[in-house]
């Protein structure tokens, strides 16, 4: 099996999200597409950090764990920040969608006439 196989599956997941953002009419589907693409990016960073046979980056007082056997801790810390910010942006998008539904009575973006550019 190809050594890049997990990365390729991750790229497929990202492409599904991008497809939803670009071609769907329903605003909730577009938000779901953004969320899926964001999951794929987080997953990619964690996949890059994985070391074959590695251990979680936590030391123990009862057992000696060599620092060289740990997975890469830096992407873990950055993805932790990224996940929380993703929730914040998702919540904001949902609030805007609820507001748009209240104003136009539909989630269909082609029917929100005053937003046409």
């Amino acid at each position: 099996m190809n050594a890049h196989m997990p990365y390729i599956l991750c790229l497929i997941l990202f492409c599904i999200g991008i497809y939803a953002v670009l071609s769907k009419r329903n605003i909730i589907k577009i938000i779901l597409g953004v969320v899926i693409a964001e999951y794929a990016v987080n997953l990619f960073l964690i996949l890059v950090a994985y070391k074959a046979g590695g251990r979680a980056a936590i030391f123990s007082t009862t057992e000696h764990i060599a620092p060289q056997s740990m997975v890469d801790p830096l992407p873990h810390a950055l993805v932790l920040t990224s996940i929380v910010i993703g929730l914040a942006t998702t919540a904001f998008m949902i609030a805007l969608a609820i507001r748009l539904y209240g104003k136009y009575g539909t989630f269909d973006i082609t029917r929100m006439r005053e937003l046409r550019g």
Partner: protein
Amino acid sequence: MIELYVLLGLMIAGAIIAIEVRNLLSAVVAVGIVGLGLSIIFLLLKAPDVAITQIVVEIAAVILLIRATLHRDIATKPCSSRPFGGFMAVLFLGLAVVAGILTFDGGLNPFGEPLMTVSEFYPLNAVAGTGATNVVTSVILDYRAYDTLGEATVLFTAVVGVLTVMRSRGRTKEEDLQENHE
């Protein structure tokens, strides 16, 4: 690592269902499958802190999405494409695939061999430097504490934004006048 491929396949199936199913509530539940599968993958990839955060965030996101779609779960129309949608989708998917091929051909290490040139420092020095046995915690709360401060700022801004957008009515002129009078 066969579990990893099974879970990735489950996530891709969940994502396709979420995008193509007509009922909005079902779509939201399918995205929940994707997020929870993601958190199990984080556990398999030895990232327990990230997995815990992902579970909490996923549940919160699904609750918010259900709040948005509840009572409004009208099925989407069958002809739900939009003008230039297909063209844009083909263009950007092509760009994504080209970028992926370029990345896989040059530079990207094979799966399971991380590039440790920068982050080697953290496992070697975390305990002596910060006293934290969890290296991820030492990075978040000590070496890159300003990142976490920025994250809290973004979270606060988003909460203020959501409250502003969701407020049901604005202030009236009379209220403003009254406040100035007092």
